[in-house]
């Protein structure tokens, strides 16, 4: 009796999970299919697979109709995202190490301030920041993204690294000290190799967030030659007619591919990260 009811409830669960998975992923599958459909087919049908796949949408969108095509926007996005991600990883490791391993005056209040900035709404400081960067002549450059990364202005990642360093045994540092290492060598040679999974998490999250960021690029980047994909895509959508919707779907598809690839490539390290912290308990 009990077995039977748990079997049916399991079946219902599976059925629900599979239907839900399909609903969740359907928009993305439709997007992939639509990139290969003709415009007429795109809106007349509900199926995912195109009847007669056409491949023109990708090359047409890639080269663009105006002066700049998607190849430019994609390159720009990497020029903006890659330095931001690298500097975020470096600064969060340094700040995390500082808070986790050293005792200095005012450490507690400073750490508390950092934690509270986690909840500071970005919209409150967006205007003065804009004016500040404008006075420095940084508008229409990627510096408003890169410099905050250098200065560790993403408290979430700093906090993540603090937590991670706290989980590493202090004996590692002490053995390094006995060998005559200074604090930086201890970080570089002994601790850093153990931080791989945490650093990968920082990289993936910051990559995805910066890649998807729209409000900031909308505010800071004004010339089309410097547009990242987010702005390029919206511009293409605004000037498009009914006849190149498949192009826009194709370009949307290309623009979401790098974050997805990175996520799947780094998934192993996420799991590893969870496993190691679980083992520590």
């Amino acid at each position, binding site marked *: 009796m009990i077995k039977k009811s748990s079997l049916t409830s399991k079946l219902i*669960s599976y059925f629900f999970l599979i239907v*839900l998975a399909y609903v969740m992923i359907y*928009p993305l599958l*439709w997007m992939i299919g639509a990139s290969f459909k003709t415009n007429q087919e795109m809106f007349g049908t*509900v199926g995912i697979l195109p009847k007669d796949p056409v491949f023109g949408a990708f090359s047409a969108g890639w080269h663009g109709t105006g002066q700049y095509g998607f190849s430019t926007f994609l390159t720009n996005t990497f020029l903006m995202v890659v330095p931001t991600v690298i500097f975020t990883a470096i600064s969060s490791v340094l700040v995390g190490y500082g808070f986790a*391993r050293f005792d200095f005056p005012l450490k507690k209040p*400073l750490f508390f301030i950092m934690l509270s900035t986690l909840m500071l709404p970005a919209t409150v400081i967006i205007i003065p920041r804009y004016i500040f960067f404008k006075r420095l002549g940084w508008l229409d450059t990627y510096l408003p993204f890169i410099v905050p990364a250098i200065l560790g202005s993403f408290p979430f990642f700093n906090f993540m690294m603090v937590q991670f360093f706290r989980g590493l045994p202090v004996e590692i540092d002490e053995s390094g000290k006995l060998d005559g290492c200074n604090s930086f060598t201890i970080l570089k040679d002994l601790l850093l190799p153990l931080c791989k999974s945490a650093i990968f998490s920082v990289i993936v999250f910051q990559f995805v*967030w910066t890649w998807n960021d729209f*409000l900031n690029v*909308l505010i800071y980047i004004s010339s089309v030659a410097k547009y990242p994909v987010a702005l390029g895509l919206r511009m293409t959508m605004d000037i498009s007619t009914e006849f190149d919707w498949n192009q826009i779907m194709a370009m949307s598809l290309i623009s979401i591919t790098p974050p997805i690839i990175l996520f799947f490539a780094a998934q192993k390290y996420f799991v590893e990260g969870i496993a190691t912290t679980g083992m520590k308990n």
Partner: protein
Amino acid sequence: MLSRKRFNYTGYLYILPWVLGFLLLQLVPLINSFWYSFTQFQLLGSPKFLGLANYKKIFTADPTFYQSLKVTFYYVLIAVPLKIGFALLIAIILNQKIKGINLFRTLYYIPSILGGSVAISVLWKYLFMNKGVINNILSTVGIGAIDWLGNPSIALGTISLVTVWQFGSSMLLFLAGLKQIPISHYEAARIDGAGTMRIFFQITLPELSPIVLFNLIMQMINAFQDFTSAFVITQGGPLKSTYLYGLMLYDQGFKFFKMGYASALSWILFVIILFFSSMTFRSSESWVHYGDSL
């Protein structure tokens, strides 16, 4: 050797980037924005002190402010509970010994990686437009077309769907929390003859309550500031029915370049967010259960 605590000033060297960043990119801007909010400040001039005039105008002579505030409250009230409730439900289902849990988890998480992007907003627009796929699907099952984006009483719901669709990140937090609940708790309850519902309300939910609180606060802070989907999909329309606070701030600050007025708006939002997060924290004393071990 005698000193109680040995300070190591090298620590400052490591946290220096953050200290500079905090001062230059957070604290000074915060003070500036407070100051600007009492001024008239067109981007090209310098700020002119106005006293409370901006705030007075917002509260007494700006109907869009109230419209936007109303829309934003509705949005937060729809999107946040739905997202968290859904995340919790799915996490509980996945926590039964489900085969292929990794696959489901990944599939449900993917929208959270993409959700905030323009590409997804564009996709949403195409899915929900009048002759879009969703209406085609509805017509094959015999339901008439719905004006998802053009009807002022539906459009906000359509925008909220983008948010709810990204329940994956909250779900992961709940899953991690569920793993921490000792099986003995469940067994004890079952021996006492508790049914599924009672187990959920008396064990699962209380044990997860700190994570519910965390999700609630973070999602609320984010939802109050949401921008991209409403901006790209409906541009705040129709009839300003999706004119979220973020859109109003953007218009005042970066379309009309009224930096003083926009700063005042941003401080009002800040106070609203502070109010609701602290209310949530306060109320949590009565519903958040911290484990006996703590």
